[in-house]
């Protein structure tokens, strides 16, 4: 269910604009994941976003030491 809810909750206009600004699939995915997260937690106080952001970064741009 969580997977299904993901990008569909974000405005198509925003998704299209992101796609038009970068062709890098990882960047596109990361931007969208951040927005899905922000949509889920907006108006919710005291959430530590940093951990979630770092997780999104690691998912989209796994570091192999060579980059």
């Amino acid at each position: 269910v969580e997977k299904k809810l993901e990008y569909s909750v974000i405005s198509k206009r925003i998704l299209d604009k992101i796609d038009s600004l970068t062709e890098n699939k990882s960047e596109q995915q990361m931007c969208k994941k951040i927005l899905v997260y922000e949509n889920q937690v907006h108006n919710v106080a005291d959430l530590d976003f940093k951990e979630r952001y770092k997780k999104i970064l690691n998912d989209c741009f796994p570091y192999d030491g060579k980059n």
Partner: protein
Amino acid sequence: MTDEIRIISIEIENYRQYYGKQIVEFPDRDNGFSVIVGDNGAGKSNILNAINWCFYLKEPHKSKNTGNYIINKKYFEELENGHIGMMAIKIKLKKNNDEYHISRILSVVKNEFQYEEREDGKVLNISEVEGYFLPTGSEVLSSESSFKIMVKEKGFKEFHPIETVRSDTLMNEILPALLAPYFLLDGEYLEKFWEDLSRVKTGVESISQLNLLSTASEHLSKMKSSVPVIGSSQIDRLTKDIKNLERYENSLDINGNEQWSKLERYGYDPSSGTSEYYHASGYPKIDELDKDIQKMKLRLNEITKEFSESNIEMVKRLNKELQTTTKAFDGMKSQLEQAKKLFIHAQIHYGPIFFLKNSFKKVVDFVEELRIKGELPYESKMIFTKDLLDLGKCICHADLKSKKDKKGNETNESRINVEKVRAAMANDQGLDYALKMVNSFNEKILRDPVKFITKSFESPEKNYYGLKKQFKNIVADLGEVKRKLLDIGDTNVDKLTEDHDYVVNLIEESTKTIGEINDKIHDNHRDIRDFKSDRTTLMNKDDKSKRIAFDQNVWENISKILDETLNSLKKEIRLDVQKRTFEIFEDTMYKQKVWDRFIIKENYTAELIDNRNVPSLGSLSAGEKLFLALSFISALKEITGYRFPLVIDTPLGRVSGKSRYLLSQALPRYLPNDQLLFLATGTEILEPILNWNDDPEGFPEKSFAELLEESVKMNYWSLNPDDSMTTINKFIPKWRKNESG
């Protein structure tokens, strides 16, 4: 984002007026709009509250429930002490192809009611228990107060709960709480929509989700600045410099705490003990100044309005009143003098006549006696002798013909005698005078003494005292107007002028400050970019800091993409909404092409400009304001593709007949696929529209619902209140019953 959201049904159980379980199942859009009709106090607003409470744990129309508690009174009174009472709202929602069951239940233990003895009888004590107003002594069972969302995906038969860490955050993915004011509406809110311009910003940014980009941008800034100490003096120095510059942008001190200036924000009243200060620098300060400039502009509008209603207008009005009253005073004064003269004259002139009434009667009787005896009046005697002489014959048959001698002297003795008698009568007119007097006495008083008294004394007296009373009132009015003019002075005008100049100066100063901060931020960005580039070069040479450089690079790139997305969409969507709002509004307004354009500025202030190039948002009628707000919401729905349901409470409260007609024509066109639920009174929606104002030719005498039925199907429910237990029932309006016979 979703394409379509629709409320399938609402189940209300023991909530406020609703006793037991009440269910309303709404048709899909193909089967039209829905209306729940109820009198004031029957529970319309509480349907809006029920939806809000179920979704977001809020009751925005709570003020209407003052003195009542949230669980149905009858149900709770019937419950035995020590037992658990349950109140629930369950809403079925369809979002695209999926169905959601959203439910919230409140469980409360009832304990013995406590009453307060008052002069007018005993009153139940109600107090706040864990956020709910309940009879004092009740206990909320938090563990049993539940919020649950179940989903049935397309192709599945069963509902299953959505597993998430926080179920309340899930509602944001279905219908975000921030959007509630744009789909759960009431007429009063729509009418006052334009009084708070932040609604435009929230509307544009929230419905099109630009707010998510803004928050993401803020969070990414924090990620970009969280670079730890590396141990390399060069890298760490650059990081320190970057952080210093970034701190300016976010108004933070060296420890990361918010920095404040000593400059007090606009609009805070020191006498009330509340004051707020501006941030020291950067975006927070710009944001605050922007918001305060909006407040200042609203204040300027108020000042302009106050000016028009101020002393100047008041003095003008009072002067006009003084002029009118003085004119009335002068007119009345001469009328009163005239009436007084008549009154005195009547007493002097008619008084003696009244007192001599009996003498007059005696004279009349005496003359009448003479007349009966054969006494002829002078005139008759003269005619009679003339006739005898002309005829030449007396009534005693004596010859009266003229016989003259050569000298011309009369020789007929009989004739000479008659001529002598006539000559002797020449001045004897006594009886004639007496008869005239008799006539006069009869006319004046004797024929109708009551009329004489009324005309001579009562009428002048009544007229005089009536005018005297009116005159007294005018003198009092005149005194009051003069007193008001003396009292009014010019204080308000002076104060308003002073306030006006102060606000204008403050707007200039604030705008200048924003410009200065923006310049500084621009310079900082250039320096930060250079420092970061140098730092990345150094980091990539160091194995220990390579990973940090890698992460920083990703944050930078993502931040750049999202910032660009935000900036370009902000402008695009704002201009699209601006254009579409005006198109819908103009079309809705039928033939009235009196407006030239609708503007949403970069800072989200909105204005409607008329054909004379004059801003006219403030002077729109209640109906026009409501239309513009609905046009704005319709435009947002179209442009963002976010088709949420609209629930509008008391939509037509202050809307004129003509506007109701126009709205009935426009709504089906602008909500072709969207769910619409009205919560309305019968007068609003079922009674024929009467107050057409001055307009046009031949509008039909139909109700708002009948007019809607011309282009869309309508479904009706009624709220039937009866002793703390409102029930909801489907019904068919009377015109449909008539049609079906």
